[in-house]
């Protein structure tokens, strides 16, 4: 089968069941090529570019107003980009209206047709394509079984729970074999418990049907759990795209580091293969390799990567940063969260060098040092009890070194916790 035939089938033909294997081809399932969009004069999207592979789940993660919903609407054909192309299975669909794209959208509100039963909703895509009753019934039966709604087939949407409505919405799009599924904040309207259960269900379902899916969310936990890859969006720009492991453990920008999980940020400079943070020095030959001598950088590390020791002994593979004093200890369920004040004092800067960790940040209380957040799992917290006021050695088991382009506007030693 030629590629153009495949797109025709999935664009227009809703019947039959084409074997999934035949869809595998060189072209990506969906590609966005330098998409830009302005509303009035506000830039909503700037040069968005990414590909989705066959059967892949991609999560667009961003705060509200980051433009993620606009991307979804552009792929669906509900919004037009100012520049750029939308390509589905190798076919440029930028100029096609929504109804000719064969894309399945699961709206945040599910948008089920209120005057149609579950069956009618699911069969709608086939009905408007003029399929025979017999064919519609067969397909609807199949899909109702797939999403497990056998007992509810004659109910109206208002008689269903949020989770059931969502399953109807998914089945309704699957009826016409969508090229790609687009989920707009799919769990926003559900309570916390249902949310966790449903996203596992959906993940399992997607693996079974092997349709590429794009999720829109602002929930980092959801993103980490649902995505084969995560694309982090900030103010209309793509900050980073990668596997959950990549974006969480190797964030490329401060925004990614702080939006996905909690992160501590310290300002420093590169100095002979080390990172100098005020008077503290941490060896980082590998991490600093791509930076030049004396370059201003940010040291980014997760609370769980901070190792604290009262005796001063740090395990192998843990690099010593400096000493600090424990300011606060809180138990947060599964782990213990500590606020530490690091002994970071400004080094006398040479001429033209930025002042890092000036005493000015001590504020009214005349305390010096930089606060960071650390967490310890319960077993460790119980084995090595710590108290407020203890002096400890602080080491890092993992950290990232990022270029610091916006030094002037940056507050030093900022702690960001979400």
């Amino acid at each position, binding site marked *: 089968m030629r590629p153009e035939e495949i797109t025709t089938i999935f664009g227009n033909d809703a019947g039959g069941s084409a074997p999934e294997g035949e869809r595998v081809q060189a072209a990506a399932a969906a590609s966005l090529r330098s998409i830009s969009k302005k509303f009035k004069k506000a830039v909503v999207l700037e040069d968005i570019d990414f590909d989705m592979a066959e059967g892949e789940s991609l999560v667009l993660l961003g705060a509200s107003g980051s433009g993620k919903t606009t991307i979804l609407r552009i792929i669906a054909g509900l919004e037009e980009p100012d520049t750029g192309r939308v390509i589905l299975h190798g076919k440029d669909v930028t100029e096609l209206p929504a109804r000719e794209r064969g894309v399945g959208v699961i709206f945040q509100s599910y*948008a089920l047709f209120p005057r149609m039963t579950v069956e009618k909703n699911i069969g709608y895509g086939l009905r*408007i394509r003029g399929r025979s009753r017999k064919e519609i019934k067969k397909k609807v039966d199949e899909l109702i079984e797939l999403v497990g709604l056998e007992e509810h087939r004659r109910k109206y949407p208002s008689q269903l729970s949020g989770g059931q409505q969502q399953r109807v919405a998914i089945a309704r*799009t699957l009826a016409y074999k969508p090229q790609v599924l687009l989920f707009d904040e799919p769990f926003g309207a559900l309570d916390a418990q249902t949310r966790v259960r449903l996203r596992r269900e959906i993940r399992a379902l997607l693996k079974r049907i092997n349709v590429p899916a794009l999720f829109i969310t602002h929930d980092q936990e959801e993103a980490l759990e649902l995505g084969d890859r995560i694309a982090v969006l900030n103010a209309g720009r793509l900050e980073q795209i990668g596997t959950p492991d990549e974006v969480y453990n190797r964030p490329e920008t401060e925004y990614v580091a702080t939006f996905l999980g909690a992160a501590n940020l310290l300002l420093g400079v590169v100095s002979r293969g080390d990172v100098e943070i005020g008077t503290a020095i941490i060896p980082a030959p590998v991490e600093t390799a791509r930076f030049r001598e004396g370059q201003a950088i940010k040291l980014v590390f997760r609370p769980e990567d901070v190792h604290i020791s009262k005796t001063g002994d740090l395990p192998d593979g843990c690099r010593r940063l400096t000493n600090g004093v424990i300011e606060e200890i809180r138990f947060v369920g599964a782990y213990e969260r500590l606020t530490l004040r690091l002994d970071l004092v400004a080094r006398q800067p040479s001429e033209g060098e930025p002042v890092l960790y000036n005493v000015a940040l001590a504020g009214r209380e005349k305390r010096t040092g930089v606060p960071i957040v650390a967490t310890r799992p319960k077993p460790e917290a119980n084995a090595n009890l710590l108290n407020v006021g203890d002096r400890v050695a602080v080491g890092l088991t993992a950290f990232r070194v990022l270029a610091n382009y916006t030094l002037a506007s940056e507050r030093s030693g900022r702690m960001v916790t979400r």
Partner: protein
Amino acid sequence: MRHVRGFDVVRPLSITTLIAIMLPLVLLPLASIFIFGTSKGLGSFWAALTAPEALFALQLSLVTSFWATAFNVLFGLFASYVLSRHNFWGRNAIIVTISLPTAIPTAVAGFALLLLWGPYGTLGRLIAPHGVQIMFTAWAIILANIFVTFPLAFGVIKPVFDTMSRSLEEASATIGATRWQTFWYVTLPSLRGAIVTGALLTFARAVGEFGSTILVSGNLAMRTQTAPLYIFAKFNEGQVEAANAVAIVLALLSFFIFSILFFARDWLDTD
């Protein structure tokens, strides 16, 4: 303070007062047309009702009201669609204009139509030489009915359109429906209640229309005399029984329409 035990006098007293106020104002006038109409026996009531003039008047009222209703419901749908889907300069001016006929006295409406379509009217003058006469025909009655009931269906349908989620139509489009299919299968069913309500209100109002009809129709028996005009004419001639028989039918029709609106509320409301 609420009585926990014993006889609570406030409850029966307040209900009695309520009915006592309504009695002379609403209930007795309505009751009297039934009492008077049947006082000489059902036979004479039936004879009065089946008089050719009476039957013609009732039929003319129903037919003209039907066409006025059909037009106003379709127009109301169209106007609601345009005005809630598109935002343009002058949109509010149009909404106000559509709603205006409710505030205009019906006699003024009839007079205005005469000035436009009458033999010497602005437009009537142009069509008269071609032998086309609109005033003093059934068309005039339909025009008058359309005018005075213009905003009723629109007023019921537009709010439903406004609150209807756009995502329903967008969902339908992404599923592959054309605009027409979306309108037919998704939008229209959601408007079902509003359409029925709007149609009943329009029809009820049109059947009873008097002020504008009497001016534009010419009130010609067996030709342009509607039921309300018949009641008025027979009353003036002193044929109270004849007038009363038709009055009963109109009253029953109103009860019937109102009952549908009241008892089918749930069915009409569900979306």
